[in-house]
């Protein structure tokens, strides 16, 4: 990279506007460039702000659950799980074991689906047009399972406070097992296409490095933290919904660059299949809904519960004043906090690397803006 010469006297301000094929939604990034090198970025967000937290103060607890799906619309089941866990903690009830097992299966399927969307769109941004078709085709299988179970593919509203609404349908276990058997060869296909590919490696290796100290300082969680070497996953650190019963590993890598995050997410998909296999072997029998009153009025108090969403740590801070409507619902969105580190990662990179970095943070604007 040549140093600045007399030819480039000014810095160029370039607007990667809200309508852009590579910004995964309505994200506006204002780049200050010196030639092709980025010397500063500024993110402007809020184009998808719908006021979900204000809506939460005007709906009852059960009524608010469909709104929660629409924040991170790619991983709607995880959002619903976090919300139901938070309200159940306020009420001090726990879902029965059968409901917990089915919740784990659906949440892990959702994690695979979310990572498949990520892989497809990230590869598309880098320029590889093939993986997006394959990942979306496999994702159809998962969405079919969701549709057969709860009636919707994307905004599922699958869980209710206290457990599940619907009993699992006939053939749920066979469908899930068939998916697990066919999924692993497909993941091998993705790896065959991308992992050793020299173009992929040279686009991703060494780009967007975020060390472990930076991650902890910027509050970055999820696959970004694990790619930097910190072996931390809320499913192991503070288990919820029966995760302590399942045996799985936390994939970590050393360098903290974009290629490592890709490898971490591929490994996470395989670990998710492992969890699903264990969970679907023995779904315990029993009730699917705990004893929860029809009108939910939790005692006065506040609680903060967080889960490991596919994007990072998704937290719900709910303040209750004893009435049927929450007093304050705060959602701690992983994409919002992770997006802060874009500035740190993009300094000194090229413009094409900015596209790769935005893709690797794995943001969903519905969650960033709520």
């Amino acid at each position, binding site marked *: 990279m040549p140093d600045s010469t007399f030819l480039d006297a000014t810095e160029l301000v370039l607007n990667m506007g809200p309508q852009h094929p590579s910004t995964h939604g309505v994200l506006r990034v204002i780049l200050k460039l010196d030639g092709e090198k980025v010397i500063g970025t500024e993110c402007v967000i809020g184009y998808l702000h719908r006021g979900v937290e204000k809506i939460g103060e005007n709906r009852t607890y059960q009524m608010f659950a469909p709104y929660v799906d629409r924040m991170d619309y790619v991983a709607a089941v995880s959002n619903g799980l976090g919300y139901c866990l938070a309200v159940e903690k306020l009420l001090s009830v726990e879902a029965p074991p059968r409901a917990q097992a089915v919740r784990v299966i659906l949440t892990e399927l959702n994690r695979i689906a979310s990572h498949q969307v990520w892989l497809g769109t990230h590869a598309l941004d880098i320029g590889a047009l093939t993986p997006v078709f394959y990942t979306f085709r496999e994702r159809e299988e998962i969405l079919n399972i969701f549709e057969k179970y709860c009636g919707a593919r994307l*905004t599922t509203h699958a869980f209710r406070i206290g457990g599940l609404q619907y009993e699992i349908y006939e053939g749920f276990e066979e469908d899930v097992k068939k998916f697990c058997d066919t999924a692993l060869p497909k993941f091998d296909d993705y790896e065959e296409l991308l992992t050793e590919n020299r173009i992929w490696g040279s686009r991703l290796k060494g780009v967007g490095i975020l060390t472990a100290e930076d991650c902890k300082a910027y509050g970055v969680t999820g696959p970004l933290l694990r790619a930097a070497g910190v072996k931390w996953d809320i499913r192991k650190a503070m288990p919820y919904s029966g995760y302590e019963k399942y045996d799985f590993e936390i994939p970590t890598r050393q360098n903290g660059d974009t290629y490592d995050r890709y490898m971490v997410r591929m490994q996470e998909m395989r670990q998710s299949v492992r969890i699903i296999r264990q969970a679907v072997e023995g779904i315990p029998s029993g009730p699917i809904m705990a004893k929860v009153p029809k009108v939910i009025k939790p005692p006065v108090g506040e609680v903060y519960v967080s889960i490991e969403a596919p994007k990072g740590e998704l937290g719900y801070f709910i303040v209750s004043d004893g009435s049927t409507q929450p007093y304050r619902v705060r959602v701690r969105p992983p994409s919002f906090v992770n997006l802060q580190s874009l500035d740190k990662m993009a300094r000194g990179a090229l413009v094409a690397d900015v596209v790769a970095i935005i893709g690797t943070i794995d943001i969903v604007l519905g969650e960033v803006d709520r």
Partner: protein
Amino acid sequence: MRKFLRAVFLVDLLRGLWVTFRHQHPRNIQTEQYPAQRPKVAERYRGAPRLNINPENGETLCISCNLCALACPENLIVVGWVRDEQTKRKVLTTFTYDVSRCMFCGLCEDACPVDALELTQDFELAMYSREGAIWDRQMLEEGPRPTRYRY
């Protein structure tokens, strides 16, 4: 040496290309030719609403309990009823449902105690004007009307 040969002869790129060629086999074609081929929709799919009618005597199953209106997060169901003098029961007169604001969450379907309100498998709800989105009782009872294309 092996690495050099692999790099020169583009082995990694060719392996990826072979994966792509493998998918050219006709059995791997996944595209559905919509609208000639309609997708198979699950039984529990939350689509357009419908008010069910008792098949034996042709009367509506709805008992005007208003639970669906209370359960809706968007308050878009309006149930009208009169009280019948002889039997002292409520009789349904009008039932208005605003499909433009509905998010198809299924809470009204869960709340109905007699399975009168049901969300069907109809997902083709495009309409030409916003007024057509407020459905009254007659439209709801007819049920889904998917357009049939003639080729």
